């Protein structure tokens, strides 16, 4: 006698347009909605302004203007090279967000492909893939990144994204594999098989749509983590070159105790921006997570 009860659950659990449920859930959660609006605003400002700003102009060294505190000319003051912090903040935010997004998407894509294949086919393929993933997980991530960064000759945003992605896809692959394994056991997959649908079609058109909500949630939450990802490396001196401003670079200026203590305008805005963006994305992610998980839904 489970049918009708299940029916009600099912209605919520796997609705056709998970997007619309997610949207509903977002709108219902004031915090998430606020976050979404704030984040969009930030992104519009950041991307809009970075089109207007001239990056070369911003990173231009002006020795007459070192560490000047906020003023009308430099809204957020300047750094030790006399470079405008506000401009760096905008461009940095754009770069950092782009990096975060790109890493999230690339790792998502790789993780998705690998996870789906491993999970769906199982057996030997799964075994091989899982061994590879295990191996990558064992690699001391930070150490190898540092080594790789030292090797790469032309080191820029693009290579940075690639390097990070090369290590970070494994977590997603594991997640998606696990979900695919579970999904594979469901009868609709068996049904498709008995109906003569080829495997690739089953993976792409049957299983994938059912993983979409979990993927979206995971990617969102990951995005939050990936925004500040280069700050640690910047601290160690393996971050992006300074001619490519990023939030992490700005934050890592704080390792100079003088800057940390008395030149707040250099690092604090970037830290706050990271925090705000992360919080926004996190709140949105949490709302999406609730949307994906019927039990926690607000309604």
């Amino acid at each position: 006698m489970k049918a009708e009860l299940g029916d009600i659950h099912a209605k919520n659990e796997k609705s056709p347009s998970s997007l619309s449920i997610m949207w509903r859930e977002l709108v219902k959660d004031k915090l998430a909605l606020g976050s979404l609006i704030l984040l969009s605003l930030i992104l519009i400002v950041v991307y809009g302004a970075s089109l207007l700003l001239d990056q070369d102009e911003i990173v231009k060294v002006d020795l007459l203007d070192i560490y000047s505190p906020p003023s009308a000319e430099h809204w957020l003051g300047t750094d030790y090279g006399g470079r405008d912090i506000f401009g760096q903040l905008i461009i940095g935010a754009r770069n950092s967000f782009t990096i975060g997004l790109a890493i999230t998407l690339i790792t998502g894509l790789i993780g998705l492909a690998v996870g789906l294949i491993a999970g769906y086919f199982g057996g030997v393929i799964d075994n091989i893939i899982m061994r590879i993933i295990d191996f990558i997980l064992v690699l001391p991530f930070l150490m190898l990144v540092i080594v790789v960064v030292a090797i790469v000759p032309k080191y820029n945003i693009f290579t940075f994204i690639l390097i990070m992605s090369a290590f970070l896809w494994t977590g997603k692959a594991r997640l998606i594999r696990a979900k695919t394994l579970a999904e594979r056991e469901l009868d609709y997959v068996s049904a498709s098989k008995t109906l003569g649908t080829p495997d690739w079609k089953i993976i792409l058109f049957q299983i994938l749509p059912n993983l979409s909500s979990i993927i979206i949630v995971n990617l969102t939450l990951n995005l939050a983590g990936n925004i500040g990802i280069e700050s640690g490396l910047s601290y160690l001196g393996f971050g992006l070159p300074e001619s490519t401003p990023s939030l992490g670079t700005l934050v890592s200026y704080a390792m100079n105790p003088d800057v940390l203590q008395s030149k707040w305008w250099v690092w604090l805005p970037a830290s706050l921006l990271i925090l705000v963006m992360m919080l926004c994305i996190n709140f949105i992610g949490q709302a999406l997570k609730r949307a994906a998980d019927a039990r926690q839904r607000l309604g």
Partner: protein
Amino acid sequence: MAFLKVNHLKVYYPVRGGFFRRIVDYVKAVDDISFELRQGETYGLVGESGCGKTTTGRTIIGLIKATAGEILLEGTDLTKLSRRQFYSYRKDIQMIFQDPYSSLNPRKRVLDIIAEPIRNFEKLSPQEEKRKVQYFIERVGLNPESIYKYPHEFSGGQRQRIGIARALTLNPKLIIADEPVSALDVSVQAQVLNFMKEIQKEFQLTYLFISHDLGIIRHMCDRIGIMYRGRFVEEGTSEEIFHHPQHIYTKRLLSAIPNADPRQRRQQFQLREEVEREYKQLYHRYFDDEGKVHPLKKISETHSVAIP
């Protein structure tokens, strides 16, 4: 000639273990069973949980590879076919799944769900395809409008019928129904059972009906096979099984069915105790030293029992 003939089918699942995750043992899910289905009949497969019913069904339709034995569909051995060859036989065998919730992809519209096999096997224009889907959806008693809806908008019974419509689009000859109603509420269950009977006549279907509910088996099936630990203990017509059970295990199974008449309560309990006693006493006569079932022996034209 038998429409579907299963000969000495064995399906073993490997059990891995030891130092290198080698295969150390096998779960003998299906261990040498043979039976045949005739055109247009409903063959029931009953047994306790884990006795291998699902495995049998899924092996016949090709979801699981047989370890040994043959599955002859109108004379062709399905187990010997390559993937490509098997493809054309797909159409002849279809399946109705136990769980009407998980067997329909929640992200697909009814139209896409039912059209999936059509798209795989026939090249139809979208209009033709839609017409065909609508025909079947009407045949299973749903509103043709509903093809644009998603599964969650239907009740369990309706979903099960969508599943059936999907299976019917390919004009199958054999439908394997693995516990098609056990996930459904009593009232909905009746709908589906009635409906299955109805389309059987209409489409000349042969059913392999798997269930552990003897009430339903009795209601649906012409012939019944009782399974126990991957083997058959008894096979016969519905009449024979229910009224003249021969194997002690069959008797025990039957006696366990609750009697819907409260007045018979006492008798039922007594009967059960008796059978239980008998089962214990006669266990060694019906099972060999390893607790396995003996091979089937014909005791009449239609009735076979596993006795030494």
